[in-house]
């Protein structure tokens, strides 16, 4: 099986605090066609992991390599990594006033291709994808994340994922703060996206989002390190017992 993402022995510190490693000795390997889940207590480094893959300026990799789709991207820029096919759904996506969702998606599409975007087809595609996420057509004309509810923002992230159609989608706590119906729509979006030629990395606190998704692997992240990996039953076990066992192991 071919690997889409391979994180090798990564150590990460925060840009503004080099006193402590947030990720240490982290190894993770995801194959094409797989869905992986990362679970862990607050502050264990889950979001740092997502942002490290994307080379966020807030974090510095002090050791290790990240191989994405066969290329070492450890020294690449955020936009390069995105163009290569990585996507991330943000926990709290930024508001961009004055830019409509439709024009934003068009800007992204234009940057992805040298060809002129066919507006008719493009709008048809947006409408179809919005419909599948139970989003009203009018949302396309709303300003990007401005005045959107938590649920609307998350759906908007999933809409972007569907429009961009990346090779690897990292979903950072996309389910947090969502009601049951919204979670169902998000998992529907993930299933619409998922195929044998891409992969999904879900970062989550709870297992509700996973109910309708085929999960290949679950990893437990504690203090910046993956302390245990297993199949989906590991997620269920965490849901029941919590992280206490792993926290103790670590100390």
């Amino acid at each position, binding site marked *: 099986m071919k690997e889409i993402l391979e994180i090798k022995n990564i150590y990460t510190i925060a840009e503004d605090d080099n006193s402590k490693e947030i990720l240490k000795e982290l190894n993770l390997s995801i194959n094409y066609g797989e869905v992986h889940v990362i679970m862990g207590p607050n502050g264990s480094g889950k979001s740092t992991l997502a942002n490290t893959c994307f080379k966020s300026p807030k974090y510095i990799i002090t050791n290790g390599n990240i191989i994405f789709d066969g290329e070492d991207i450890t020294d690449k820029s955020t*936009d390069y990594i995105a163009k290569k096919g990585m996507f991330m759904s943000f926990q709290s996506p*930024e508001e961009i006033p004055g830019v409509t969702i439709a024009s934003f998606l068009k800007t992204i599409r234009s*940057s992805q291709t040298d060809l002129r975007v066919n507006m008719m087809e493009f709008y048809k595609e947006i409408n179809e994808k919005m419909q599948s996420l139970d989003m009203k057509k009018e949302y396309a004309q709303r300003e990007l994340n401005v005045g959107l509810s938590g649920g609307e923002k998350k759906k908007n992230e999933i809409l972007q994922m569907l429009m961009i159609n990346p090779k690897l989608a990292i979903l950072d706590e996309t389910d947090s703060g969502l009601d049951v119906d919204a979670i169902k729509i998000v998992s529907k979006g993930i299933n619409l996206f998922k195929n044998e030629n891409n992969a999904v990395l879900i970062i989550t606190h709870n297992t509700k989002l996973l109910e309708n998704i085929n999960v290949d692997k679950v990893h437990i992240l504690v203090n910046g390190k993956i302390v245990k990996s297993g199949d989906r039953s590991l997620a269920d076990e965490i849901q029941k017992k919590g992280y206490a066992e792993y926290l103790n192991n670590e100390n």
Partner: protein
Amino acid sequence: MKTNVDEYLDDNINNIYNLKADVDSEKYFGLTKEIIENISKEKNEPSWVLDIRLKALELYDKLEDPTWGPDISYFDINKIATYIKHNVNEERSWDDVPEDIKLIFDKLGIPEAEKKSLAGVGAQFDSEVVYHNLTEKLKEQGVIYLNFDQAIKEYPELVKKYFTKAVPLTDHKYIALHYALFSGGSFVYIPKGIKLDLPLQSYFRLNEKGAGQFEHTLIVVDDDASMEFIEGCSAPGYNDLNLHAGCVELFVGKNAYLKFSTIENWSRNMLNLNTKKCYVEENGKIEWIMGSFGSKVSMLYPLSVLNGKNSKCEFTALSFAGKGQNLDTGLKVVHNAPNTSTIVNSKSISKDGGICTFRSNVLVKKQATNSNMTLSCESLMLDSISRSDTIPVNTLENNDLTFSHEASIGKISDKAIYYLMTRGLSEIEAKALIVQGFAEPISKSFPVEYAVEMNRLINLELEGTIG
């Protein structure tokens, strides 16, 4: 809508603004009584106009530079070509305009826009107007749209009634300079009850090195009439200082409406000391739209005098100051009658050490009861070396009014840039998108071709390819 400008910009924007025409010309440098008499003679003016010029010259020599705002002490009138006579006439057909000059206006998209979306066009090249035209239908309705020098000759009484009445010679040093040297510009008269469906546009192009441009624009919108006027300004870049000291006098009658849009993209060697004033009568409305991108230093604060009951002023402005630019702009408004209202929406963007200052000066007279002022000023700085200031001065002589002033100054968000970069936009593309979004509420008030051009100017500005 894809315009001529738009298509051309796709290929090569830099060259438009930097195009220079090689035209035979006669130049006067500096400011003396003799030069002024010569200009007046060249123009074959009536003596009352020369009298105004000479009086203005006296005032210019007496008046001092402003003691506030950007430093312009390096300005030397003797290095400015105060009058440039190209050996060309004003034409009614673009075909008759000399090829070199026509090419520049073509590239700026003016003749094309005239065909599609304008009721009349004036085009000024340095000191003189090279093209002026108005549709026959409007001429029949009594609309006057002429180059200002021409209007003095054809409608002396009408011009006399309004000329210097909004902006007196004594206003400040650079308006005295303007009246001493004024040349070209437009005169517009919209008779009672006439409503124009399409805008008139005057384009001011400065071509010569070291040139000064002193156009005078006078617009009278009579009672119950309405119109939109667009002025565009640009110049190629030179190392020598250029000067723009234009003057705009506007008169909006009872129940009349005037939208006055300016998109200014002077080159970065331009000292832009422009003066604009508008009188608004009962139920009348002036709407100012101002886009300031160019110039080395700008000092421009349009004044609206709300003279009649229920008269209104709406002011929408966007400034973008890059490296070496000091854009000192704003507005003044005098509420002179009851139930008058002012709405101000201003945004500024500064980068690479550029300075944007927004001054608002609101005077509400005692008699202006039940009046309303809503001011909003937002600034965005793209780095920590740029500067942005908002300086409000409010004089409220009665208590029966509603006043609100919101000002916010912010730095572009690194988080937002990162968010957009995770979608595959480069850092520059991400910044441009944020800036365009910030400017959007203003740019949507611009004429459509200019809104497109403005977004391109923002992109270019961020790529650092001009200036």
